[in-house]
């Protein structure tokens, strides 16, 4: 019995290999077909990769959108729960759940402290009984007067003045220019409106006249003067002088009014003093607010 070595057996097996050469035409055709298939396969792989990339981006985008929606919803829910705006059953459930984790959320039966909303601007309290709103349009008339021609100015009786102070009828005294009165001050050329005039009248100043006033810079908007002295918030008609002992009380002063107040910084148009007029609020005789001088009530000037 002969022994067969492993090497000889391997050599005999290798000798069994049969080379079967392919036909050239078949080989060429097969090679061309395989080439086309390989190119098509590579193209498909590229398309699939692009498709996968787009899918990946879409998934990431969807997750982002869903995440934002979730975060927003959670924030809104927490906000509603914290302010107790959920319906009662839901609020109770949420309150119990948050109570477990140590977050204090009001339940439906808890009173949520309401913070009062204060207005930014204080509105004055106006008592309808004590306040009379005068609606008289202040008149400022400057009439050019020729120096050579004597000026005779006659102001008609003003029946339209209906200013009332505390419901009293105001007398209609006749006043002269420069005197205390409610008549429009008509000053002849060269005249000087003396201080202290009750400046409740519109000033008619001729050229050359000097309207003397404590507050010359203020606009000369003067209405028929009334002086009002009242502790209550006052609404002063044009030309009125309101005396207010309480500084903190708001006051509404119409243009041309003068308010008796320690606060000197009255806005232009509120002084109520026209040139030739004077704030006469301290004068007891004039009885602020009851001066009795009807605005515009003027008797014919003797001059």
């Amino acid at each position, binding site marked *: 019995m002969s022994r067969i070595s492993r090497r000889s*057996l391997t050599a005999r097996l290798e000798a*069994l290999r049969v*080379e*079967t050469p*392919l036909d050239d035409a078949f080989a060429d055709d097969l090679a061309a077909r395989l080439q086309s298939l*390989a190119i098509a396969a*590579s193209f498909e792989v590229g398309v699939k990769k692009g498709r996968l990339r787009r899918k990946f981006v879409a998934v990431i985008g969807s997750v982002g959108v869903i995440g934002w929606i979730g975060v927003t919803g959670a924030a809104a829910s927490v906000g509603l729960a914290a302010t107790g705006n959920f319906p009662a059953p839901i609020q109770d459930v949420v309150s119990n759940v948050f109570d477990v984790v140590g977050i204090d959320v009001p339940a439906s039966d808890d009173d949520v402290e309401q913070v009062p909303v204060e207005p930014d601007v204080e509105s004055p309290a106006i008592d309808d009984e004590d306040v009379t709103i005068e609606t008289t349009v202040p008149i400022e008339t400057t009439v050019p007067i020729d120096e050579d021609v004597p000026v005779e100015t006659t102001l008609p009786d003003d029946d339209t003045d209906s200013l009332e102070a505390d419901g009293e009828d105001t007398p209609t005294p006749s006043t002269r220019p420069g005197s205390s009165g409610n008549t429009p001050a008509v000053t002849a050329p060269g005249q000087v409106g003396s201080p202290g005039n009750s400046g409740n009248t519109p000033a008619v100043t001729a050229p050359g006249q000097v309207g003397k006033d404590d507050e010359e810079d203020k606009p000369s908007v003067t209405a028929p003067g009334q002086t009002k002295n009242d502790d209550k918030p006052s609404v002063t008609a044009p030309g009125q002088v309101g005396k207010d002992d309480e500084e903190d009380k708001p006051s509404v002063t119409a243009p041309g009014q003068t308010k008796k107040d320690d606060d000197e910084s009255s806005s232009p148009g509120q002084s109520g003093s026209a040139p030739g007029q004077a704030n006469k609020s301290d004068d007891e005789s004039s009885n602020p607010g009851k001066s009795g001088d009807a605005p515009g009530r003027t008797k014919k000037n003797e001059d």
Partner: protein
Amino acid sequence: MAIRRPSIADLKRGDPRAWRWFVNEFGSAVTGYARKFGHPDPEEVTGSTLEAIARRIATFEGGHAELRSFVFSIAHARIVDDVRKRSRRQQVDVDWASQPSLETTDMGIESSDPDLVAALDQMPDELKHMLHLRYVEGLSTKETARAIGKSEVATRVALSRGMAKLRAVLESSSSHEEVES
């Protein structure tokens, strides 16, 4: 004329020279492999196997050793499938019936070593495929295992036992011949 071995990237790119080399390199081997294991249409096996490689070459990863294993694994699968279909159908094909058997075709008539072919016929089919791929086609043990679909260790053990058994068969046959002579 021998064609210089192209790279796998050339095959993926669709280089005609690369694919021509591929057909020459594996076409005849797959055809011989199919013919030796009794497939009635070895060229059809070759064509379908190489087409399958071309369709998957874009996603293929590895070198030439892996490509060789890949080719023979596909060829092996196709041959085995065709053999199973043939036995399941219980159908006698005229062409197949007219074809000589595996032993008489490649390993009996055309082979110059009928004793070895006869000894191989006594092996199980899977071991026969292993021995053929490992020693006839020259694949490594790892490549053979990959082509057969077994683990490398199992393939190595099976090959060792198969070689021992084959040697025993050959020795016994030679002793019988000596006795008869």
